[in-house]
């Protein structure tokens, strides 16, 4: 019988089996590693896609829930927002004002990866601009009759107002009427009180409707955004402050904002839509925004208003006079011999006061960019 451990009798089965097992193990391990590599590659693709979609969510969320406070950003100023995406993903957006009407919206989608310090990130951007349709290519639009027996003037030449942004000169008609509109200008010195290009324009687009005069805006859509509903007689309107430190009291129905932008105050950014469902008389004061009157409007006492005034009935200005910077549309205009009204067309004022009812939208061309 052979002695255990004798070199002459040792076999090779064990090394052979071990070798085969090692080779098999290597193949299995290689297959496993390859599969894991593919799995990680696919997961990376998935994370990159999630980060991209999350950045898109940030763009869309910021745009659709546009905060009116962003309107007050100075040029070059920035604001930030953040939100959650699907699962653990999140987005962070930055809005920068580039110009009077131009914004740069940048959104970063972030997908954290468990167990590591790095994360999947994608950045996208949109260039945005105000899409405020401008109504009223004239200082005054009247449907039925103009009886200007008092003082004052109407100018279709858009100029700059202290503190308000200037958008460049415009040359619009001073008075836009229908062919059948009866015009009497005995009080203001005849056609010389109307300055514009041309001073008077017969416009078939008016089509017998005050609402047509403010197209493409609609009276109903503007009225739906009203935050003030005065009626009867309003002695005076003006900016009011409340609290410590003093802040603009937007809850005051007679606070129609501060139109004196040369001396900015807490109420400079308040530009309400005011809707009177019947006749309205305003004794005086100042304000800015959009003034809608379903009935007649009587102005007096040095009323100073920046914005759009739309009167479904008759507009009358009394002895105290009134000054409107922006535009006026009325069914008829009556300035009695002792009355006075001055209307200065301003596209910039109109654009600013209409921002509330309007929206920001991506630029028409090349607005979207991948920032990587």
């Amino acid at each position, binding site marked *: 019988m*052979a002695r255990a451990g004798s070199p002459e009798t040792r076999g090779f089965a064990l090394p052979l089996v071990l070798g085969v097992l090692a080779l*098999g193990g290597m193949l299995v391990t290689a297959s496993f590693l390859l599969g894991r590599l593919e799995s990680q*590659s696919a997961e990376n693709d998935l994370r990159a896609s999630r980060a991209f979609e999350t950045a898109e969510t940030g763009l869309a969320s910021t745009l659709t829930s546009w905060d009116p406070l962003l309107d007050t950003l100075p040029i*070059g100023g920035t604001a930030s927002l953040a939100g959650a995406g699907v699962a653990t993903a999140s987005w962070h957006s930055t809005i920068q004002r580039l110009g009077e*009407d131009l914004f740069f919206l940048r959104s970063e989608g972030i997908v954290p990866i468990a167990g590591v310090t790095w994360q999947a990130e994608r950045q996208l951007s949109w260039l945005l601009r105000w899409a405020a349709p401008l109504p009223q290519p004239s200082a005054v639009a009247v449907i039925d009759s103009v009886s200007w027996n008092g003082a004052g003037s109407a100018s279709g030449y858009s100029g700059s107002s202290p503190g308000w942004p200037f*958008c460049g000169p415009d040359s619009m008609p001073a008075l836009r009427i229908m062919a059948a509109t009866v015009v009497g200008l005995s009080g203001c010195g005849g056609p010389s009180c109307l300055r514009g290009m041309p001073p008077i324009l017969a416009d078939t687009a008016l089509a017998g409707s005050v609402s047509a005069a403010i197209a493409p805006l609609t009276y109903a859509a503007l009225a739906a955004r009203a935050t003030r509903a005065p009626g009867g007689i309003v002695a005076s309107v003006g900016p009011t402050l409340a609290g410590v430190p003093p802040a603009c009291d937007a809850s005051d129905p007679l606070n129609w904002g501060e139109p004196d932008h040369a001396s900015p105050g807490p109420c400079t950014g308040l530009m309400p839509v005011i809707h009177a469902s019947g006749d309205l008389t305003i004794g005086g004061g100042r304000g800015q925004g959009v003034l809608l009157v379903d009935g007649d409007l009587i102005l007096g006492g040095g009323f100073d208003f920046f914005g759009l005034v739309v009167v479904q009935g008759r507009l009358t200005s009394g002895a105290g006079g009134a000054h409107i910077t922006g535009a006026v549309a009325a069914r008829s205009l009556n300035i009695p011999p002792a009355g006075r009204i001055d209307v200065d067309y301003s596209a910039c004022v109109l654009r600013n006061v209409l921002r509330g009812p309007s929206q920001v939208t991506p630029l028409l*061309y090349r*607005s979207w960019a991948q920032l990587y």
Partner: protein
Amino acid sequence: MSLNRRGVTLVEMLVSITLLALVGGLALQLLLRQHWTGEAQSQRAALQATMRAAITYLESELRELGGSPGDPDIVTFAAESLTYRAMRSAGIGCRLSPTALTVRSSDLYGYRAPQPGRDSLLLFRDGSPATSSDDQWLHLPLFTVSAGSCGSQAALILGTAIDTSVTPLSGFPPLAPFRTFEIMQARLYASGGDYWLGARSVSAAEIIQPLAGPFLAHGLAMRFLDSLAVPATGAERIRSVDVALLGVSASPIRSGAGMGLPQRRTDSLGTRIMLRNW
């Protein structure tokens, strides 16, 4: 000779060799199957990864395209070839003169830094802020890129030339958005008996370089669709691109129950890419 030192008989040796051959053959077959299966999986994974990479590249390059009336980003297009303006960077200029656009480094984003001679500029001009109808993207040359500052921050100065008699600087916003782009060509081409998706910079007069492959002959088919999803009749009308890929494995692989004869396997992938900037 000692009685307790026995050798192996011929019969024992033959039996052991037969058993070893049997077990070895089975083990070898098992290992080969394992190898072929792994190889097949690897090839399939590589094939799918190739097609995913091709789609990812095309999506990344094409979805940012668009243009404006009379100025589309797609230059020429065919089923297997596309020449286009590839966006390379975007940013916000802090200062503009007739000969230079200055950009803070922190306001420059994108795939890579601007390269003079290779890239061109698209500079946004607002015209009158009161209307969007006169908005335009001016196509400008990029002559130089140098270091500078804007305020106290580091900046790049992009040398260009603006004809202010045609486009006065007053029409640009205080902070001017811009993009840089180069003309690129992506196409299917044959090399080494296979077909590859390749790309080259036309602006830099490069020769074509492979991006992904191999593909079958006609393994890239692009359809250019208008807003009604019917084939577009001109570059300006293209709103989306249907991409279909037919890939082939890099080498023959065995598959099936009997592992069969090795063959090159094929797979397909398709997508529709919407152009975001129309």
